Structures are given as structure tokens and as C-alpha cells.
């Protein structure tokens, strides 16, 4: 029983990190209708910025989080302005390839700046772990913070989109760019805001990812990025609660199959489940079915 709980908790912990990354993917996709494959690498940059502030300069962890979020926000807006905005009218394939290009650009820049050897990230969360069942089940402080943060972000984002003018503008752009422009919505500004929010989430995701799994290198964000993207598709890309649920389900399936089926096949099983879900429900768990109007 204690082992099962440990597996489950480490699954939830991994899943919560996937969920936060997936929120970034799903927001950008839902509103700008593009797959921002560089998202995983913005996470990595965010983690490096936090590492510099907290470990190298020895400043406070709160400052590290704030600076890292600001840096990623600026980075996100810059990427959008330079790489994606000129392609607004181009086919989605061109944008996708550009995003992959940006991803490699960020990875290699980080390699150049920070070097190839991985750094050990000091966790920004430092209160003691919670022990259950007489110490046989240990929940680390990072796990608790990650889960809480992902829930807070999910609620905040949903509220922001449904209750504020900017949020409503985002929904309008998502539904129909042309009509939104006619209604007087500044589409470019709205998309830039989307990227800003998505990228600041990436900074938080990077910090939590590296606090839980402290090896930081230029490819740190790549694989979690792909898995989180899968989680977003799994939950229904474009849907905020979907990303959350998708991330958690992915993390739990991954860890339980590692524990009870095979540690080698875990990834194959996760992606197998994804295929089954998409066959049964092509829009993902929480995805909305959108009728194309002719």
C-alpha cells in the first residue's frame, strides 16, 4: 500500500509539472491556433535565469521567480514579434517549422552561453517534506507546491479568460480572427498578450520542473515539452481544464506502468493510451467539437 501511494504521488508530481507546461501549449494553441514548439525551450531559459539569480548570485528565491517570469515574458513577446508575427497569413505548416527552428535556436544559444555540462538546480522550495503512514510515504515539498501551483494557475487562467475584457478578446480572436478585427479588437496585441502569459507560465514550469528534477541543461525542456504537448492533446488542445487533467493522467499512467508493467515500456504505454483516447474521442478528453461553417 505504501509503495502504491509512493508511485501514485510521484505520478501526480510529474503530472502536475506536465500540466503546467501543457497549460502554456494549450493557451497559445487555443488562441493563436499555432503549436509553439519552442515552449519547452522557453521553460529551459526560465530555469537558467532562476538558476543564475538564486544559485550563482545567491539572491532571494522570490526575486528569482519574478525575474525569471519577466525574462520569459520578454522572450516570449520577442519570439512572437520576430518569428511568428510575420507569418500570420502563412500556412500553419510554415509556422510549425518556424517554431521548431526557434526551439533549436534557443537550445543552441543556451548551449553556447551556459556550456554543455549540466548544472544542478538548487530547489527554490525549501520547507521539509510531509511524511504519512509512519514515514513510509514521503511527499516532498516541491510536489506539494507544484500541485497547488498548477491548480491556482488553472483557476486563475479560467477566470481571466471568462471575466476580463482582454480574456473575452482572446476568446473572440480564437473563434474568428477576421470577425474579431471587425469588432475593433487588436488581434496582434491580443496574441502578444497570449504569448506573454504563456511564457511567464513557462518560467514557473521551468522552476518547478528543475526544483523537482534538478539536472539543468540546454535540452532540459525538450522532452517534458513534448510530453506536455501530448498531455495537452490528450486533454483536448485548447481546453484549460483539459490540459490540467491530461497532464495529471499522463504522469500517473507513466509512473504506474513503470511500477507495475515495465519500466522500459512506460513511454510506449503512455503514448498507446493517447492513441486509444484519440481514436475514441478525436478532440481529446475535454476538447470541444467545433462545427466548420461553410
Amino acid at each position, binding site marked *: 500500500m505504501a*509503495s502504491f501511494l509512493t508511485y501514485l504521488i510521484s505520478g501526480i*508530481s510529474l503530472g502536475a509539472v506536465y500540466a503546467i507546461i501543457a497549460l502554456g501549449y494549450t493557451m497559445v494553441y487555443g488562441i493563436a491556433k499555432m503549436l509553439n514548439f519552442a515552449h519547452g525551450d522557453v521553460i529551459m531559459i526560465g530555469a537558467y535565469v532562476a538558476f543564475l539569480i538564486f544559485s550563482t548570485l545567491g539572491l532571494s528565491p522570490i526575486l528569482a521567480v519574478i525575474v525569471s517570469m519577466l525574462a520569459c515574458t520578454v522572450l516570449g513577446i520577442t519570439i512572437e514579434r520576430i518569428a511568428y508575427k510575420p507569418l500570420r497569413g502563412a500556412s500553419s505548416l510554415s509556422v510549425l517549422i518556424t517554431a521548431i527552428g526557434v526551439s533549436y535556436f534557443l537550445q543552441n544559444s543556451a548551449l553556447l552561453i551556459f556550456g554543455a555540462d549540466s548544472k*544542478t538546480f538548487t530547489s527554490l522550495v525549501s520547507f521539509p517534506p510531509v511524511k504519512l503512514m509512519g514515514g513510509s510515504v*514521503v511527499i516532498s515539498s516541491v510536489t506539494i507546491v507544484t500541485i497547488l501551483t498548477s491548480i491556482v494557475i488553472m483557476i486563475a487562467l479560467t477566470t481571466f479568460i471568462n471575466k476580463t475584457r482582454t480574456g473575452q478578446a482572446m476568446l473572440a480572436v480564437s473563434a474568428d480572427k477576421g470577425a474579431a478585427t471587425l469588432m475593433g479588437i487588436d488581434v496582434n496585441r491580443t496574441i502578444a498578450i497570449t504569448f506573454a502569459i504563456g511564457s511567464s507560465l513557462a518560467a514557473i514550469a521551468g522552476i518547478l520542473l528543475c526544483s523537482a*528534477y*534538478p539536472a539543468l541543461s540546454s535540452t532540459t525542456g525538450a522532452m517534458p515539452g513534448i510530453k506536455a504537448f501530448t498531455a495537452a492533446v490528450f486533454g483536448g488542445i485548447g481546453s484549460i481544464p483539459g490540459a490540467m487533467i491530461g497532464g495529471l493522467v499522463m504522469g500517473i499512467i507513466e*509512473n504506474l506502468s513503470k511500477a507495475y508493467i515495465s*519500466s522500459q515500456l512506460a*513511454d510506449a504505454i503512455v503514448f498507446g493510451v493517447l492513441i486509444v483516447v484519440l481514436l475514441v474521442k478525436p478532440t481529446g478528453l475535454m476538447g470541444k467539437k467545433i462545427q466548420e461553417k461553410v
Partner: protein
Amino acid sequence: MKKFLSAVCLAAMAASIVACGSGSGAAATTAAPAATEAAATEAAAETEAAEAPAAEAAEAPAGGDGVFVIGGSGPLTGGAALYGIAVQRGGQIAVDEINAAGGINGYQVKWVFEDDEHDAEKALNAYNTLKDQGLQMMVGTVTSGPCLAVVEETADDNMFEITPSGSTQDITINDNVYRMCFSDPDQGKKSAEYIGEHGIATKIGVIYDSSDPYSQGIYETFDEEAPERGLEVVAAEAFTADSKTDFKTQIQKMKDAGAELVFLPFYYTEASLVLQQSKELDYSPIFFGCDGMDGILSLEGFDTSLAEGLLLLTPFAADADDELTQNFVKAYDEAYGEVPIQFAADGYDAVYVIKAAAEAAGITPDMSVSDICDALKGVMGDIKLDGLTGENITFTPEGEPDKAPKAVVIENGAYKAMD
């Protein structure tokens, strides 16, 4: 057009040799003019007949000088640069010592080393550059992947080659290639041998990277050898390159299976995560790693207290108190201002292996590369030497070293030799 291109390429190569020479100190600078000349003559020759056997061209410049040219390639820049630089420096120290003591068979030795950036294609270029510099015996390459590419070429040229640290099994497939370090499969075997003989533990758990031939190879031979040594593998769990951050599930399974010792045959970056997550799960078995674990203490930001008591199978510990190690560490520190790692010791020993074989075979610098190789091959089975990486080192007919495994333990944040 092709001829013109190859001439341009060769000219560029020659230029790069000069550039390297001026960059890397006095010893290399003196070597540069001769090499440039050789490259230029060859440029002319090779544009005429690009298919001419390269080995012949390579012998010409060195023989006349009456010096042995020994050298190799390894990553001097890029992610694996640490390893290449260590071998280059270790070899340099060995060559300096040999020259000061009168050389090999009365002839001085020239040490040449090229950067291959841990890249197979660049390693081939580096090998050609080395041949242009008159290479007669090769210490290289440092890393496995490039080495697999280069052994094809050295077999064609019948060039004597000893890799200081390329551990992939297939490197020694040709009979001109020998190895200084343990091969991957041998590391698994020797780890089991070491754990069994020293009675460190009997219930063993293994976590390994099933997507990496290095890790998988070590695990398989370890698993095979363990029962022979009275060890019981109670749990073996894999991870892959795609999911190498979260190890808690694997660790929990080790804990449930009651493993007293967890064997970690992979690189230190992932190992640092395993150590940290084990602590989070309140699990503290003995951890045991292979040569990939070497370097964990220099990981930036790593809390070295996590590695306290970690054992690793490595042939070299800089704090060992034998005279050979002490002198080497002192010389290395004087020349480069740092403590040598095992790769430096591998490079040093490899040069001495060549010396021992060369003296046993009585070779001279005016012999052709192929004749030297045949002569050395004939005596490799007979030589025995005490090196930094082991005592009474001998070589099997397959080209593998035969020496007792050594381990170091991490104590108070530093490597300490085990007896």
C-alpha cells in the same frame, strides 16, 4: 574541379595545423613547420593521384628525423572536452618523462594530438592530419563513437592503435587495436567481481539506461556475472533517454526489494538525480557506479553530501599513495594546475604500453607504419607493466587489458582510494 577542391581542402588543413601550432604552446609550434611542409608536398602528390595509399605518404617525413611519432585524437573542444584534454595532457607527461630518460630504444618521441570534437567524421580528418604529421603509433581515439570510425582506417593502414578510454566492445575487433581501459562488458563483470570479492553486499538492485548501449551492456554482463560471485540481483529497473528525470518509481522498487546496494551503470548527471530522489524517499543503500560516475563531484551546484559513501569502479584515484601516482599527480599539477582524472592516467599508461612493446620488439623510427605494427603485435602478449591504472597489466589476444579492478569511495566530498 575536384582536383582543385581537394587542393583547396588540403591547403586549408595545412593552414589549420599552423593555426593550432601557434595556439598551443612551444612544443607544438616547433612541430608546425615540418607538418606544413609535409601537408604541402602531399597536397601536390594527392592532387595527382588521390587514390595513392596514404600510409606511404605518412611515413616519409618522420623516418628521416629519427624520432618516433606517437599521437592521437580526442575532443579538445565541445561537451566531452574534459576527456580529450586529460588524455592529451597525460600522454604529454609520459612522453616528456620518456624523452628525459633517453627515449625509446635511444630515439626521442614526438607527441602529436588533434581535436576531433567527439565527432566521427572530424576524427577521420584528425587521423589524416596526424598521418600528415608522420604518425607511427596511435593513442586514440578518446571517445567510443569516433573510435569506431577510426579503427576502420587504422586497420587499412595497419597502424598500431591503443585507445586509452574508448570502452565500446567492437573497438578492438581488428587485431591492430588494443585498449587501456576496461570495455563496457568488462566493467559489468569487474564490478560484480569487486562487490563479491570485497563482500560489500549480497542483495543488489540495478537501475540502468536501456536506451544507451554503454549502460545496457554493463548491466547485462553484471547480471550474468553476479550469481558467480554470490550476489543476488533482487531488482533491475530500466529508464530511457526520454524519461530520465523521474526515478522515484525505480527507487521505490529497489527499496521494496530490499536491495542493500544499488548499482548505477550510467553517467553522473542522471546519477545525481537518483541520489537526490533516494534521499527524498528516505532510502540509503550503498551506491556503486562505473567510470561514467567519475566527475559527479565537479557537477556545478551538486550537493556533494548526497554522494557521501558512493563507490565507483575507476582505475585511478589521484590520492592513492603509491609513488607512481604521487609523481604523476605532482607533474600534472605543476604543468596544468589541476588534479588529473582517470582519462589522464589512461593516456599516460597507453604511452608507456607503447614504450614497453616498442622496447620488447626493438623497433626503430625508420621502419614503416605497417612493420612497426606487426612487430608490436608480436610482443603485446608478452609485455607486463605496472601503470597508474593497475599493477601487472597484461593484454589478451583480443586486445583487452587484464588488470585487477580498483574502486574509489567518496569521503568528505573527495575521492579516496579503496584498498
